[in-house]
């Protein structure tokens, strides 16, 4: 049995239309899709299909099917930005 501590990635997501960021620790293999879903719930955003929500890391949009480990690399922290694209209009 290994006593090596379990690695987690500290995710912090800022959203301009929210009063405070969303912070949570995740396992590295967690999918971006899961984190996005959690963040939307935390920001009390109910998606209805008329707006697309996505996460930016260092200016680039993250794929929903990528893992946090892929996005964070060796870093233990992953600062992200929540952005929106209105589809209707």
């Amino acid at each position, binding site marked *: 049995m290994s006593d090596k501590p379990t690695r987690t990635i500290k995710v912090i997501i800022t*959203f*301009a*239309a*929210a*009063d405070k960021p969303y912070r949570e620790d995740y396992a590295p293999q967690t999918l971006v899709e899961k984190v996005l879903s959690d963040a939307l719930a935390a920001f009390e*955003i*109910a*998606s*209805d299909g*008329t*707006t697309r929500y996505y996460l930016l890391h260092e200016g680039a949009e993250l794929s929903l099917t990528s893992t946090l480990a892929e996005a964070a690399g060796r870093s233990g922290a992953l600062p992200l930005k929540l*952005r*929106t*694209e*209105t*589809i*209707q*209009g």
Partner: protein
Amino acid sequence: MDLESLLRLQRDEPPVEEFLASTGGALVHRDTDPSGLYWAVLQPTDQARRPFIAKIGWSIYPHRPPSLLFATEVGGPTADLRAWPSAGGYRAPNDVCKPFTAEGQALHPEWATGPSAWRSTGNPFLYVIETVHGDIDRSCGRRAA
């Protein structure tokens, strides 16, 4: 514009200026402009493209979405198609039919509630600017004409 709106706008301006500067743009409010009126110079990520000039007029901040039009230059007219982005919902030279604009909300009363309702939390000024910049980049900085 009421005093509370002015104070809230002053509070929220610095992050907007910082974001625009980081993308090669700027936020302009001239002494001659009415309170609540700003000109955002939005530089597409494709630096070969010319910047857009968004004319943003706040009425009651942060509780109402802003009027959003596009001008040929700071202080210039908004009727020129060449000043407008070629992006979905950006209906040059009339309006931006999106939930984050006064024009969009006026055209769609059903947006007043539910997921498309205006959010007055956080920094709505920054939210609008980031969203418009994203729309411009998705259309590769193209113009309506």
